[in-house]
């Protein structure tokens, strides 16, 4: 079923209790998605990442790995007989540009799905556009949750999955006392709320919680506080350039990795290489993917990707792998929708509605099998804990036995649960598009 944007706006306004609108204000008729897929013709998808500016460091890699995945799918015959055609734009690390480019991709280029964003701020910037057009966003990295829309599919770990194993593991091996350090924005704070739940269950004790301004490189005051608190380990959600400064100053200020390691949700292969291996060695990371994962699919993925023209940066990273699998989630979702409706009737929303339960098997997914939750459209996955070695690679020290369920509202049970139709409050009311 196609839902026109006009109809959408009207219905939601009516739902909000406003008076029905006279039509003079909405004269331009524009369909939600004014295109049709035809067998054999290219399927356009948008790649909305930053290729310049401060976010280019992670997001350029996302664009590269996405192009690699598309090439791979096309070589194997495309989707339902059609090749995928990427429309690549540069969001310039500017949230206003993300919003503009999302509109361009949806309204002008008529892509059927957008793969994009690395930060929650950019995702929030484009969501009104995506939702108003009943379109589809694949968000291929970790985020905090507490969001329930009918237009997104996420292949990264949610806050409730990310630290579930890490905290008990650290408490068991290093001691009960922990100090939280994070960058000052939403994701670290939400992640820490989840971590506190796991910490309490593990019988640990929180000694302090500090947030550093985004982009700040001065960790002296925080390290002084940590020195006084004497925790058994540090739990870090510091991101970007700050994370590298944090690890460097940690060592320079005389902290010893053996007696007080940093357990991080962000410091992967790319970060370690940027700070110099000596500063990363010994610390821990929780992620669904590591370059060193020992399975045939991953070996093939690493080898082929690094040998391809997209592997110029010489590394595979959890963020890149989550982006890679999202391409296959899209492929399978589109195939399921086409099988049910016929390819010419496939819309962005139809892909999403047919993606619940989609599984990317161990033969394709380098991190091992994953599947999309049928209710909240986040990803069932296995977080792994790696320890950074002297050469900058990670050694997997623990891997959960079972998949961890994604739950965007795990720490807010009073707000409800995210279902495929919207956020279901405890009193049974369903609200759509909660962001």
């Amino acid at each position, binding site marked *: 079923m196609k839902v026109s*944007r*006009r109809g959408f*706006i*009207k219905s*939601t*306004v009516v739902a*909000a*209790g*406003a*008076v029905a*609108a*006279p039509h*003079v*204000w*909405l*004269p*331009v008729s*524009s369909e939600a998605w004014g295109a049709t897929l035809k067998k054999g013709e290219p399927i356009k998808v948008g790649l909305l990442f930053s*290729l*310049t500016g401060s976010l280019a460091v992670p997001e350029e890699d996302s664009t590269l790995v996405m192009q690699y995945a598309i090439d791979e799918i096309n070589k194997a015959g495309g989707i339902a007989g059609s090749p995928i055609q990427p429309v*690549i*734009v*540069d969001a*310039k690390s*500017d*949230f*206003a*540009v993300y*919003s*503009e480019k999302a*509109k*361009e991709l*949806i*309204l*002008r280029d008529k892509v059927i799905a957008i793969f994009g964003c690395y*930060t*929650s*701020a950019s995702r*929030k*910037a484009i*969501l*009104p*556009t995506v*939702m*108003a057009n009943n379109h589809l966003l694949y968000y291929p990295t970790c985020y905090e949750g*507490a969001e329930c829309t009918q237009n997104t599919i996420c292949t990264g770990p949610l806050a409730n999955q990310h630290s579930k194993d890490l905290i008990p593991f650290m408490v068991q091996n290093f001691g009960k006392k922990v100090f939280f350090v994070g960058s*000052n*924005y*939403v994701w670290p*704070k*939400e992640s820490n709320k989840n971590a506190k739940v796991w910490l309490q269950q593990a019988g640990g004790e929180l000694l302090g919680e500090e947030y550093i*301004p*985004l982009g700040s490189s001065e960790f002296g005051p925080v390290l002084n506080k940590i020195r006084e608190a004497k925790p058994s380990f540090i739990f870090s959600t510091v991101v970007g350039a700050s994370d590298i400064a944090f690890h460097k100053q940690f060592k320079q200020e005389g902290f010893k990795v053996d007696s007080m390691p940093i357990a991080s949700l962000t410091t992967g292969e790319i970060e370690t290489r940027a700070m110099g291996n000596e500063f990363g060695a010994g610390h821990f990371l929780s992620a669904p993917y590591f370059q060193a994962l020992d399975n045939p699919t991953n070996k093939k993925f690493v080898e082929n990707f690094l040998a391809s023209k997209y592997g110029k940066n010489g590394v595979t990273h959890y963020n890149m792998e989550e982006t890679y699998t999202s391409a296959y989630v899209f492929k399978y979702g589109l195939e399921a929708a086409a099988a049910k409706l016929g390819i010419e009737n496939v819309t962005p929303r139809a892909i999403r509605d047919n993606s619940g339960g989609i599984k990317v098997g161990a033969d394709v997914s380098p991190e091992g099998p994953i599947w999309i939750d049928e209710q909240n459209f986040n990803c069932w996955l296995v977080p792994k804990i790696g320890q950074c070695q002297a050469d900058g690679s990670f050694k997997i020290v623990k891997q959960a036995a079972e998949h961890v369920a994604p739950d965007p509202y795990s720490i*807010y049970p009073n*707000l409800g649960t995210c279902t495929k139709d919207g956020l279901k409050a405890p009193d049974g*009311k369903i*609200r759509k*598009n*909660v*962001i």
Partner: protein
Amino acid sequence: MNLYHNKLAQWAAYGVFFAIIAAVPLFVSDSFLLNQLGTYGVYGLLALSISLCWGFGGILNLGQGIAFGLAAYGMAMTMQMQTQDPESNPIPPFMLNNSLEQLPALWEPFWSTGLGITLALVVPTLFYVIFGNLMFRARVSGPFFAIMSLAMLSALFTIILDMQPYTNGANGITPPQPLTILGTPLDPYGPATYWLVCGLLIALTVGAKLLTQSKFGLLVQAVRGDAERVRFLGYNVAAYETAIYALSGFIAAVAGCCWVILVQYVSPAQLDVSFSVTMVIWAGIGGRLSLLGSMLGAFIIQGGQSYLGDALLSTWLLGLGAFFIIVVRFLPKGLAGLLEMGLGALSSGRRPKQLEPADRANAMAGE
């Protein structure tokens, strides 16, 4: 007589410009393009505000994001509260995640759309009146004022980022639905919204143009030329400076409101230093002494970024920076100055003469 300085010719140029931008929806049915041109209109408003403050007032303001951002937050809060229900669902979702049990008092006024929009416009303007008054009475001027406005902007940026329960921090506020006025949703992709922005741009430009031609405008330009001399003539220089600064703040506030109507989003990025400097670059390249030139500068640069940026990537910014250096070095009056020189040469039939004394004073403004 240089045609460029002919008032009638100037108004004619403005008239043509207004006619073109007002006619756009008659030819454009592409809803993306209409929305994009609407945001360019917002950038035009910002360039206008910079031109008024810097070009005519001689006050280089690197913190125009203060008014723009505060107003944008006000508007976003208004739109967010329109989607909340006082009975069943009174608190925006992000606050619940930040463990707020009830709506903070700061947000209460935004239940009312009228009051919300009024606050979105009044608060930034009032902020400019107070901050300007403090600074100008202490005779902070020129580069020092520029750095001070930058510091103030950074302070606000930091605190908005930090006050996460009230502002949603770095993620910003994303009203899920368009603005509803008098029971009618204002489709951000439709001509109605475009005409709203366009109408505000035209009205404020005409107002600003008339102002620059009034006695008040003359005095402001005299202050730009030599503040000390105007002070000796018995005028309250600080009052004039505050007035022009606050006016430009008001225009930037209007721009902030329009921007949120068009993009349904605001975050601390709108108070980022680089965005405020970008506004100055628009006016600098277009010609800060010309309101129209500044606006065209905004259109050219933003258009270039939208349509050339993807193809050129890093080279685009490189080219923009180089272009900007060349303009500052050789065309202190921007592209509008180029037109002035061209028309001057045409009317007098000889090479343009050197800077006039008044211009030299402009160039020295702030020293």
